[in-house]
C-alpha cells in the first residue's frame, strides 16, 4: 500500500518535471502588473500564430527588475524606467511597449464623470491634506458651476508599490513644489493622508464604496468600472478629459529617440490635447543574454507586437507606441543586443 503511494508520488513528480521541461522553450518574463493584460493577450495571439509561448508573471515592477538582474527571466518589465547609469551598471537595455495614463477618480453624489476638473496645484494640495473638504474655496474657484458637497475628502492611494503611483507622484512633484519637497516621486511614497488600497482594483473598489473619496487608477480601470473621472488642466492650461487620444498626444511631443534608454516620463507634457498624467511601460533585457536563442525569440515577439499588436492594445485601452519610436527601438536592438561572439541577435525585417 505504502509502496504504491510512493510510486504514485514518484510518477506525479516525474510528470511535473516533464511538463516543466516542455515549457522551458517558452519565453519567460516577469514584472509590472499594469501591462499584464496586454502582454497576456499578445502572448495568446502570438502563440496561435507562431506556436511560441510566452510566460509572463505579473509580480510587480520591483520584482521584474530583480528577476532580470538575477537573469532568471528572458525579460523584465517595469513601469518606472531605469536611469541610463543603472542600465549601464547592470548591462541592460530598456524599451517602451505601450502607453497608458493615470486618471483621478472620485465618488461624489450628484457629480458625473467629466463635470469636475482640477489643476495640478489643487490636486497636490488634496493629496498633501492641505485641502480637506470638497467645498474648499480652491476647488469651488475651478468649478463655479458644480454643486460641491460639504463633505470631507477621503484620499485613497496605493498600498503596494506601483508604476501607477510612480507616474502619479512624478506628476505631483512636477506641478507642486510642496509635494516635491515633502513627499517626492517613487513607486511607493510616504503618503501624508488617506487610506491605502491594494492594486488598481482595490482603489477602484474603495473609491466606489466611499462617499467623498478621491483616488487614482489606470485609465482602463476607470473606464471598465464607469467611474467618475476628473478632468485635468494640462501644461498648456487647457482642460482635457482622459482618453487614449489624450495619452497619445502626451507621447507625441516627447523626445524618445534622444533620451538614453527611452526613459521618457510623460507627465506634464506640453501640447493642447495632452493628458498630463501619462506614462509608458518598459521592458528590460540583457545586452548579452545568457540564453541568446530565447532572447532572440523575445525580440521577435516584441517586433511582432509593435507591428501587429496595436489594435489589441487599443481594445484594452492602452496606446500603442508611435511607429517612429518602434523603429528606433528595433534599431537599438540590432545595435546593442548581441550574443557572446558579438553577433547581433536581431536583424530588422527591412
Amino acid at each position, binding site marked *: 500500500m505504502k509502496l504504491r503511494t510512493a510510486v504514485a508520488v514518484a510518477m506525479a513528480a516525474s510528470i511535473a518535471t516533464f511538463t516543466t521541461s516542455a515549457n522551458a522553450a517558452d519565453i519567460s518574463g516577469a514584472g509590472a502588473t499594469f501591462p499584464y493584460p496586454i502582454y497576456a493577450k499578445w502572448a495568446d495571439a502570438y502563440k496561435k500564430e507562431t506556436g511560441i509561448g510566452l510566460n509572463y508573471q505579473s509580480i*510587480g515592477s520591483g520584482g521584474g527588475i530583480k528577476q532580470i538582474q538575477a537573469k532568471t527571466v528572458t525579460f523584465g518589465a517595469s513601469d518606472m524606467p531605469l536611469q541610463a547609469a543603472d542600465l549601464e551598471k547592470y548591462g541592460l537595455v530598456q524599451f517602451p511597449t505601450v502607453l497608458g495614463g493615470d486618471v483621478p477618480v472620485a465618488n461624489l453624489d450628484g457629480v458625473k464623470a467629466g463635470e469636475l476638473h482640477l489643476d495640478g496645484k489643487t490636486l497636490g494640495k488634496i493629496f498633501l491634506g492641505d485641502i480637506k473638504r470638497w467645498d474648499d474655496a480652491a476647488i469651488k474657484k475651478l468649478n463655479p458651476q458644480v454643486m460641491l458637497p460639504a463633505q470631507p475628502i477621503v484620499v485613497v492611494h496605493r498600498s*503596494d508599490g506601483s508604476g501607477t503611483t510612480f507616474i502619479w507622484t512624478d506628476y505631483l512633484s512636477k506641478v507642486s513644489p510642496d509635494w516635491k519637497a515633502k513627499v517626492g516621486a517613487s513607486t511607493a*511614497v510616504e503618503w501624508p493622508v488617506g487610506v*491605502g488600497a*491594494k492594486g488598481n482594483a482595490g482603489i477602484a473598489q474603495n473609491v466606489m464604496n466611499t462617499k*467623498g473619496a478621491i483616488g487614482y487608477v489606470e485609465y482602463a480601470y476607470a473606464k471598465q468600472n464607469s467611474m467618475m473621472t476628473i478632468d485635468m488642466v494640462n501644461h498648456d492650461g487647457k482642460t482635457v478629459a482622459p482618453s487614449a487620444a489624450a495619452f497619445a498626444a502626451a507621447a507625441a511631443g516627447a523626445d524618445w529617440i534622444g533620451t538614453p534608454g527611452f526613459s521618457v516620463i510623460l507627465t506634464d507634457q506640453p501640447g493642447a490635447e495632452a493628458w498630463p498624467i501619462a506614462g509608458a511601460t518598459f521592458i528590460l533585457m540583457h545586452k548579452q543574454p545568457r540564453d541568446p536563442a530565447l532572447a532572440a525569440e523575445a525580440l521577435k515577439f516584441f517586433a511582432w507586437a509593435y507591428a501587429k499588436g496595436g489594435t489589441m492594445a487599443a481594445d484594452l485601452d492602452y496606446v500603442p507606441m508611435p511607429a517612429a519610436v518602434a523603429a528606433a527601438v528595433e534599431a537599438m536592438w540590432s545595435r546593442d543586443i548581441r550574443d557572446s561572439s558579438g553577433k547581433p541577435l536581431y536583424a530588422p525585417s527591412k
Partner: protein
Amino acid sequence: MLAMASSLPVARPALGPAFRHWRAFDCGFRLVTLTATVAVLVLLVGIMIALIKGAAPAFAAFGPHFLVDSSWNPVIEKFGALAPIYGTAVTSFIAMLIAAPLGLGIAMFLTEICPTRLRRPISIAIELLAGIPSIIYGMWGLFVLAPVLQNTVQPVLIGLFARVPGLSALLAGPPYGIGVLTAGLILAIMVLPLITSVACDVFATAPAVLKEAAYGVGATTWEVFRHVVLPYARVGVIGAMMLATGRALGETMAVTFVVGNAHRISGSLLAPGTTISATIANEFTEAVGERYGAALMALALILFAITFVVLAAARLLLLHAGQQTGQRP
C-alpha cells in the same frame, strides 16, 4: 535524539528470522519519521538565519532607532517599524478584547449549560468559522462590513462620543469604513473559534465528581463555573488567549483588506493604520533597493520574534495546565 532512536531497537528482545525483516522495516520507519522531524527543525532555523541575514542591512543602517521610528519613506529610504508594530499590537488587542469574553462565554455555554443535543451542531458551526480561508474574511470585511461601519456604525460612534473627553479622540472621524477598528473586528471573528475550542477542551478537564459535589451543596451554575471549573482551567484559558493572540498578530490577508494600509500612528481607532504582515504583503513585490527590502525583512524578523515568544509562552502554559490536571486526584 539520534542516539536515543538508535538505542531503542537494541532494547527489544531478539526475534525469530521471520520477524527480522519487519524489524529492519521498523528501523527504516523510525529513520524516516526522525528525518521528517529534523527537517522541520532545520527549516525553522534556516528561516531564522535567512531573516536575520536579510534584515541585517536595515539594522546596520538604522540601528535600534528602527524600532521606535514611525516614518516609512521609500523615496529617501528612511524606514522605521513603529507604525506597523503599533498597528499590529492595537488590532490584536481589539480582537482579543472582543473575542476573549465571547469565546469564553461560548465555551462556558457549550460545556456547562447547553443541552447535549445542541452541543455538537453548535461546536461544529463554530469550528467551521476556523476553516474559512482568511481572504474570504478580508473580502467580506471590505465589501460588506466596511460599508456598514462607514455608513451606519461609525457616524453614530463619532456623534455619540464627540463630547466625551478621551473617547472623542479615540473615535475621531471621518468615517473611512476601513481602519484599525475594522481590522480588529475581523480578527476577533477569526480568532473566536480558536479560543472557543481550546477553552472547551480545558473546561472539560474539570472532574465531574467535583462539579456534582458543588451542585450537591446548592451552588448555582455560575458558582460552579467560577469556583470549580475556572480554577482547573485558568492556565489553559490563558494559553488559549495567547494562541489566539499569536494568530491575530500574524494574520495577513484579511487585515490587508480592511486596515487601511497607511503608515501612520493615529490616536483614532477609526483612522487607517497598518500592521507588520500587511506592510510586508503590500510592499514586498515592489520593494526596490537594498534598504527597502531589508527594512521589510527586519519587520518580518520582529513579527517572527513576537509571535514566537507569544506562542512558546502559550504552549508552555498549556503544557503546564495538562501536567497540573494530570497530577490531581
